[in-house]
C-alpha cells in the first residue's frame, strides 16, 4: 500500500465527509447530504497518534435497567436510529445496545451497554480480506466503508456481536458518517467528535455518568486513574483481545 493511500485511510473518518461528498458509491446509489461537511479539529495532515489509546470504562452499578439513553444518543448522532425502513428488527443496525444480565447461580442482575469493544488485537481486523476493517493508531477500530466488500467475515469473527450489516439502500445520512448498503459498520467511538476534542455521544448523554471516556495511555486521565483504583474487567477477558472498553460491577 502506498504512503498516499495510508494517509487517506487515516483521514478517512475524520475527513470522511469531505471525501465522500456527493460520492457515487455504486451505479445509482449516491450518498446524499454530504456536501456541507464540518471540518474536524485534528488537521488532516496529522495522523491519529499512537501515543493515545482511547478507551471507556462502563460502570454497570450505575447503569439503570430499562434506560437506553446512550443507545438513542448514538443512533441520532450517527444516523442509524431510523434509517432502514425495510429491514426486520434482526436486520437493523445496532451500534450499541443495552444488555440485561442475570446470574444463573445467584440471581444478581446487571444492566450495561454493549458496543464495539475496540480490541487491541481485533479479530475483525485480522480476518478482513481487504483491510477495510482497521485499527487507528489511537486504538479506535473502524470500517472503511469505501473499501468494505460486504463479506461479513468480520461479523463472524467478532466475539461481541458488535457489527451490523446494512441490508438496504440508505438515504439521509449524517454528514460526518458515510454509510452504505452492502457494507458493515459498528461503533466508531464517535471518532468525528473525538477528533474535535469532544466525548462520544453515549458518554455525554448518560444521565448516570456511567460511562467514562478518555486516554488509557495518559496516567493522569480520569479513566486511567479510575482503572488503577477499582476492579474492572473486560468482557471475555479469556480471549486475550484486550478491549479498550472495560466494565465495572460484573
Amino acid at each position, binding site marked *: 500500500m502506498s504512503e498516499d493511500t495510508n494517509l487517506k485511510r487515516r483521514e478517512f473518518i475524520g475527513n470522511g465527509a469531505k471525501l465522500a461528498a456527493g460520492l457515487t458509491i455504486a*451505479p445509482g446509489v449516491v450518498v446524499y447530504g454530504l456536501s456541507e461537511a464540518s471540518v474536524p479539529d485534528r488537521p488532516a495532515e496529522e495522523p491519529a497518534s499512537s501515543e493515545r489509546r482511547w478507551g471507556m470504562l462502563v460502570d454497570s452499578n450505575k447503569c439503570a435497567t430499562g434506560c437506553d439513553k446512550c443507545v438513542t444518543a448514538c443512533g441520532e448522532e450517527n444516523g442509524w436510529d431510523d434509517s432502514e425502513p425495510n429491514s426486520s428488527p434482526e436486520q437493523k443496525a445496532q451500534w450499541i445496545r443495552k444488555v440485561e444480565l442475570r446470574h444463573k447461580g445467584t440471581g444478581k442482575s446487571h444492566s450495561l451497554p454493549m458496543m464495539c469493544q475496540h480490541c487491541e488485537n481485533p479479530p475483525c481486523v485480522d480476518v478482513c480480506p481487504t483491510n*477495510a476493517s482497521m485499527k487507528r493508531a489511537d486504538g479506535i477500530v473502524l470500517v472503511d466503508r469505501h473499501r468494505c466488500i460486504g463479506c461479513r467475515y468480520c461479523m*463472524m469473527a467478532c466475539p461481541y456481536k458488535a457489527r451490523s450489516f446494512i*441490508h438496504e439502500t440508505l438515504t439521509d445520512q449524517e454528514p460526518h458518517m458515510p454509510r452504505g*448498503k*452492502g457494507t458493515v459498520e459498528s461503533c466508531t467511538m464517535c471518532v468525528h467528535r473525538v477528533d474535535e476534542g469532544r466525548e462520544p455521544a453515549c458518554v455525554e448523554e448518560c444521565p448516570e455518568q456511567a460511562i467514562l471516556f478518555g486516554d488509557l495511555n495518559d496516567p493522569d486521565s480520569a479513566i486511567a486513574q479510575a482503572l488503577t483504583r477499582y476492579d474492572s474487567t473486560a468482557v471475555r477477558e479469556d480471549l486475550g483481545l484486550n478491549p479498550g472498553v472495560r466494565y465495572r460491577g460484573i
Partner: protein
Amino acid sequence: MKKTLYTQIEGGKGFWALLAGFGVVILAGLASMYYMEHNGHWVTGMNNSVVWGTPHVFAIFLIVAASGALNVASIGSVFGKKMYKPLAPLSGILAVALLVGGLAVLVLDLGRPDRLIVAMTNYNFKSIFAWNIILYTGFMAIVAIYLWMMLEKRFNKYSTSVGTFAFVWRLLLTTGTGSIFGFLVAREAYDAALMAPMFVVMSFSFGLAIFMLVLFASYRMTGRPLGDYVVRRLKNLLGVFVAGVLYFVLVYHLANLYATEHHGVESFILTSGGIYTMLFWVGQILLGSLVPLAILYNPATGNSRGWISIASVLVIFGGLSQLYVLLIGGQAYPMKTFPGYEVTSSFGDGMIASYSPTLPEVLLGISGFAIALVAVTIAVRHLRALPASLADGETDPHAA
C-alpha cells in the same frame, strides 16, 4: 491394458439442450443475485445474527467438493493406480469447474460484488480469506497445467510430478477452507481441532459423489461403454469415504460432549435445535450417510448403477445438510458473551437466532452447480478428455 483413446463429445442437439438447461438455472441465479443486490439483503433470510446463509452453504460445499473431485486423478497419478488414470482428465476438469461454481456463488452473495477489484488489489495477508484467494487461483492454474500435461502426449511424462504438486495443493486448499472456521474464536460450534481433517474427508466424499454422477451421465448420454469394473471400484471408494466422514462426525460430537463448556451447543444440534436437529439426524446421518452406505454395500443394490446414482445424490444432499447444520446452526446458537449469566437484549443476545432461506438464496446456490456443469460440458466438448471406452477390457488389468 491398452492405450486409452480420448475423444471429444459430439456437439449435437443433446449438447445444446444440456447447455440450455443449465443456462436457464444460471439465469435464475443471476436474476436472484440482481434482485438481492438491487434491493439489499433485507429480501433474504440473513440478518445480523446469521450473516452467512444458504448461498454460503452451497458455495462452501462446491469448494470443498472441488478439491475432492481431483482425488480420482491423484489416485491415478500420485498413487499409481492404473484404473484411475483414464479418469484423470475428467477429474481435473470437474475440480476446476466446481471451484469456479463455488467461488461465483460466494462472490455474488457479497454485499458489494462490484468491489471485487478492491478485494483483488488490497490484500490483508493476515486474513485467511486472502490466503484462500491465492490458494484458489493457484489451484486452478496448477490443475490447468496438469490437464495440459495429461492431454498433450509429448508432456505426458511430467504429468505425475505436476499431479503430485496438485495433490499437495488440494490438501492445502481444503485445509484453508476449513480454517475459515478455525479463526472464529468465539463461535463454539467451530471450535474443534478436528475441523480441518474433517473437511478433507468431506471433500473426498462429496467430490467423488459428484464425479460419479457426472461420469455416469456423460457416458450414458454419449453412448460410450462404461464397464462394471470401474463402477465397482468407484462405488467401493465412495463407501469408504462416506464411512470416513461419519467417523469424523462421531468423534467431533463425542469430543464436544466430553468438553463441558460445549454441552450447550451440542444439545442444541443433537436434540433441541428444531430444523438443525432434524437436518442433522435425518439429512446428514440417515439419508446422507447410513442409507447410501446400505445401498453401496448391499449386493442387491450395490451393483446397480441406478442405485449407486441414488446413493451419490444422497451423499450430496447429506453434505449440504451437514454444512447447513454446521454453518447456519453454528451461527443460530448464541455466542457465550457472558458465561454464567442469562442474557437478553434487543440484538438477540442469548437467543437462538432465526433464519429461513428465501427462494433467491436457494436459486443462487443451485446456480453454482449449474455453472460448474456448464463448464464441464463445454470442456469435454472442446478437449479430448473423455476416454472413448471404459469397458472392462480397457480398464480391468485382470480382464482378458
